[in-house]
């Protein structure tokens, strides 16, 4: 398709690949910071304590308490959630129930507060009306759907 429209496909590929390179280069420092943070939390036993505290709440929607921190953190920061996801992969393995569910949850939700801050700042809006309620509805629906689908499929 690219060849037929006389596009310099290779040159464009290189251009795009440079972009990808830049993205990874930019997230490296963030990822180091956040993986260190999560690593410290995990090693100290704080993550397990948090899961224990939250167990009664998450039980209601069938979500394992081990995954609640992931859902909460994802609302604030995508890279911090990535840190937690990798921690779950390390602890339980990517093909475990937790690993799969965490992958599906992260692929079906977005960062709420960051996105709202950036977009509304660009528009000079201070009153966001029902945006937050709608965003939370979508996130909750995605999370519940992830749990149900994972239980059914895997």
């Amino acid at each position, binding site marked *: 398709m*690219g060849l037929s*429209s006389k596009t310099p*496909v290779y040159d*464009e*590929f*290189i*251009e*795009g*690949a440079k*972009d*990808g390179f830049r*993205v*990874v280069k930019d*997230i*490296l420092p963030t990822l*180091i910071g956040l*993986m*260190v*943070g999560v*690593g*410290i*939390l995990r*090693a*100290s*036993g704080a993550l397990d304590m948090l899961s224990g505290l939250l167990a009664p709440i998450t039980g209601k929607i069938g979500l394992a308490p081990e995954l609640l921190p992931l859902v909460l953190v994802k609302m604030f920061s995508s890279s911090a959630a*990535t840190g937690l*996801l*990798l921690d779950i*992969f390390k602890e339980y*393995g*990517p093909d475990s129930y937790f*690993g*799969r569910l965490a992958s*599906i*949850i*992260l*692929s*079906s*939700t977005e960062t709420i507060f960051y*996105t709202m801050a*950036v*977009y*509304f700042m660009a*528009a*000079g*809006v201070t009153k*966001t*009306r*029902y*945006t937050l309620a*709608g*965003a939370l*509805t*979508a*996130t*909750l*629906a*995605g999370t519940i*759907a992830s749990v149900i*689908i994972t239980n059914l499929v895997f």
Partner: protein
Amino acid sequence: MLNYLWGLMIVIGIIVGIFNGTMANVGNAAINSSKEAVTLCVSMLGVMAMWTGMMQVAKKCGITSSLTKALRPVIRRLFPDIPEEHVVNEYIASNIIANILGLGWAATPMGLMAMRELRKLNGNSHIASCDMCTLLIVNISSLQLIPVNIIAYRSQYGSANPAEILAAGILATCISTLAGVIFAVTARKLGRRSS
């Protein structure tokens, strides 16, 4: 925001570590995690660069612009207050397409351009218009069909089939987007009735 979150992570980790007597583990975890982050990024470079390169080719060949055209009717439904030939239609369409293809870095600039135009349409008000709310909710509901980065992480951590979550992820994404769209459309109708 992240400053507090990260600061709390470290402080809580250290305090709990002292109480649990796990300080040695905490120190090791900090060093190992930083090494791991670098290893991960180096091995992710290939997949990411390959993907964004392919996407760039698709863009230049006009695949994205024809997708944008195909999206027109959907946008008219979702954003009924936007004049039909207004440039903001293009921005919103590009934003949605980039999101679907998982090009976050391309989606955000387009989304911000759209917000700026919507602001003009809204008379520079500091109160969000219905169209702004809808755009935000749709963006946050996650549109990305192929979570390239998650698949890359899974393969990095030795998954036997990194892409096996694809179908389930797409389904969950559709459900979250559907919930967001239903909410946005209903809220718009209710708002109109009350005003």
